[in-house]
């Protein structure tokens, strides 16, 4: 038991790694998601086709398969030397981008084209109209869906233990192997995930409330 108490801080320091994976993955996914959502709504048929294929690919494969495929296959074959952490962040990001693009796409579509039309009628070009009129509103609409994506990402990040990334689960497994005591370490790890998931959605909720558009009920 005493040994266990010593090991718990070791597990706790995995929080930094997990949050790093999540933050990195969400950030990459955010950029990809926004660009692809815009492409899917406003782009040419070719662009739409490419994005459709991308989304289909990343949503069809299990995350573990994607991790192995990119770590052992795609990155070595294309000459990239990525360590397990970097590879995990990139794969989490590419995959999250597929999911986030659909969140943002739905939000953009729900806006309708009336405001875009008004912006164009004022002489704004397409890019500016999307940037200044469509995106600020689409992002607000996306927040509930996006907070869900964060919760999924927190939990998915644990799969990177398969590449030995020193996040919470990997460390917990090491502790269990060393102490032969599975119950408390796994409970402890589970507790950390619960706290992170809960705190994250709370934060998104606060941002959502703060950025609410006055007078607008329901949709936004």
């Amino acid at each position, binding site marked *: 038991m005493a040994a266990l108490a010593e090991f718990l801080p070791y597990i706790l320091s995995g929080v930094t790694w997990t949050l790093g994976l999540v933050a990195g993955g969400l950030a990459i996914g955010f950029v990809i998601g926004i660009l692809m959502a815009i492409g899917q709504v406003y782009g040419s048929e070719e662009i739409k086709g490419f994005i459709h294929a991308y989304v289909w690919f990343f949503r069809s494969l299990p995350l573990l398969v994607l991790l192995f495929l990119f770590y052992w296959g795609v990155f070595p074959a294309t000459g990239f030397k990525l360590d397990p952490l970097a590879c995990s962040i990139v794969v989490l990001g590419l995959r999250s981008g597929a999911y986030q693009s659909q969140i943002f796409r739905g939000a953009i579509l729900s806006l309708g084209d009336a405001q875009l039309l008004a912006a164009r*009628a004022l*002489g704004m070009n397409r890019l500016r109209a999307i940037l200044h009129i469509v995106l*600020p509103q689409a992002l607000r609409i996306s927040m509930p869906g996006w907070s869900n994506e964060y919760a999924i990402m927190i939990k998915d990040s644990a799969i990177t233990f398969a590449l030995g990334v020193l996040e919470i689960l990997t460390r917990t497994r090491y502790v269990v192997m060393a102490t032969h005591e599975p119950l408390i370490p796994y409970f402890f790890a589970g507790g950390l995930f619960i706290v992170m998931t809960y705190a994250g959605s709370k934060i998104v909720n606060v941002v959502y409330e703060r950025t609410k558009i006055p*007078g*607008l009920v329901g949709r936004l």
Partner: protein
Amino acid sequence: MLGGFEMADGEVVLKVEDLHKSYAGVKVLNGVSFEIDRGQIKVICGPSGSGKSTLLRCLNLLTNPDKGRVWLEGQEITDQIRDVNKVRQKIGFVFQEFNLFNHLTALRNVSIALEIVKKMKKEDARDLALKELKRVNLEEDAHKYPAELSGGQKQRVAIARALAMNPVIMFYDEPTSALDPHLIGEVLDVMKKLAQEKLTSLVVTHEIGFARSVADEIMFMGDGTILEQGPPNEIIENPKHEMVKQFFKRISELYRRDGQ
């Protein structure tokens, strides 16, 4: 501010020649031609589906006409070389459903294009926006969001937003059709005021009272063409075309019933 309004009367601001537009094989515009002189107010009426909205959208290139030519202040804008964003800056467009930017205050709705399109400084854009809101009697609501405004107020913000760009002509696409009856007056009052300031305008509306009191001419559209045009009283009281007769008969019956 109102640059150009002092120019000589009779100068043609907008010239339209033989405009055609089809959607999926259906002819919506079937050869429309007309002119508007500086300071003129022209009202377009006609049954729904007669191509009124499509006409306005073709004229500021929100929709590309299939055939025909349009000149704005003597420059052809249908020649494919013209920068559409430059053309649209000169045309104020007021939509039936207001189309305000929901995430911006009334003030920002008016000032954003001044900053982004006209590259004005933030403070200058703000000052001008306030001035335009004052012009439509909304300076006290400058910091409200669209969802906090009534329909009539929203439409007046939309008018201020168009005015701020200092357009050479205003297009109104059924500006009061989406409004509750008791809110129509405040929008028409603003439009009348602008008409008295000789702001060249093309107004799609069924507000016959408005047409009668401020329009220089009514153009009646049907089947994608202008069936009849002339001074308001002549068109309303003494139309020649059968479709026009029927239309104004029905509208006047409606008004009489409302009046009781």
